């Protein structure tokens, strides 16, 4: 490990002072195996304790530490400084969200959107608790990818549609809706599709595809949304042509 230094340019914003966000530079010691989060923690512990950011697990599973690093939404715990070191490392809060303080953004709106897609198993009858529902390995595989979403918000930060139309339900919420629709144990696909088949639902999406590029868990929300477009359309056609027929 080489001893040297690295410059961090961090966007600061103090809610109680108001004004506009501004950059602040810090020069800190650097080891080749440091991730961006290590740098932020070094600054907070040893240089400037007022620097504020979210983090917890440091292993890319809790979803807390999203930020724009050199203009790209990334998890700071999973981004090696050596991979983004272009003279300085620029760290800003995630795009497309209001800023609470420094790198902390307000994403409460996502939780409302998540709740709106009925993100839980819906069933008419639940059976008893002595036996599990049978689900084959290939059935689990059908929704496994969408179930991996850690709610890190990188996809919302990457989505230019969300950036200009904040009412868009967005990639992660849509992927999770599909996760439940594809779960063989669920019977609530109809209600979810009704919610998504709206102007603020999946139809806002113009398939930019950047959400899937930045997703750290390979959820592929872009594909999920286009799939939902097919499914929503087919449901709509079925209802038009065969009113009264029951749907899954």
């Amino acid at each position: 490990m080489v001893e040297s230094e690295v410059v961090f340019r961090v966007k600061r914003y103090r809610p109680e002072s108001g004004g506009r966000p501004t950059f602040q530079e810090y020069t800190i010691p650097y080891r080749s195996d440091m991730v961006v989060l290590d740098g932020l923690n070094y600054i907070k512990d040893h240089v400037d304790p007022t620097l504020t950011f979210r983090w917890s697990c440091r292993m890319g599973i809790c979803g807390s530490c999203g930020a724009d690093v050199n203009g790209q939404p990334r998890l700071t715990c999973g981004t090696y400084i050596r991979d983004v070191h272009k003279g300085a490392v620029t760290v800003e809060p995630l795009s497309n969200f209001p800023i609470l303080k420094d790198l902390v953004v307000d994403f409460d709106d996502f939780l409302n959107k998540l709740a709106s897609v009925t993100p839980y198993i819906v069933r008419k009858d639940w059976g008893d608790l002595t036996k599990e529902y049978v689900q084959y390995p290939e059935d689990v595989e059908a929704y496994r990818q969408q179930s991996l979403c850690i709610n890190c918000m990188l996809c919302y930060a990457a989505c230019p549609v969300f950036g200009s139309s904040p009412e868009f339900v967005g990639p992660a919420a849509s992927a999770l809706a599909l996760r439940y629709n594809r779960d063989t144990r669920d019977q609530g696909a109809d209600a979810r599709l009704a919610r998504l088949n709206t102007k603020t639902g999946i139809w806002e999406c113009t398939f930019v595809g950047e959400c899937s590029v930045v997703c750290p868990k390979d959820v592929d929300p872009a594909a999920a949304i286009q799939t939902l477009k097919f499914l929503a359309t087919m449901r709509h056609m079925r209802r038009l042509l065969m009113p009264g027929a029951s749907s899954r």
Partner: protein
Amino acid sequence: MTGREYPWKRRPGWWLRNRRYLGFQLREAGGVVCALYGLVLLNMLIQLREGESAYTAFLDLLRTPPVLYLNLVLFALVVWHALTWFMLIGKAQPIQFTRQPLPWKVVFGVNVLLWLGVSGAVVYLIFGGI
């Protein structure tokens, strides 16, 4: 005592931030341009109705170098549009005959081959064949 949230505003020129945003804008712009070309083809029908001289004059216009270059550009945009669409189909509408759905690359490949086949047949019909 509460603080103020700093609101988000999307900056113009956001699509210059990386290659993929640029590719997206090209694809979308390309779609618009291709749609506008439909007006050109519509105009061709109108000229046909106007009479032989008007139609011939229009065809001559289409053969001029600037218009030919324009066609090349439009063709490139259509191909880009089609390829990105084919890349998506396998993921958006999974096709499944066995326990796992077909990988998207297979669906992409099959669609490209079908497209080439149909295009080949059309070219044969127009320039060879009948």
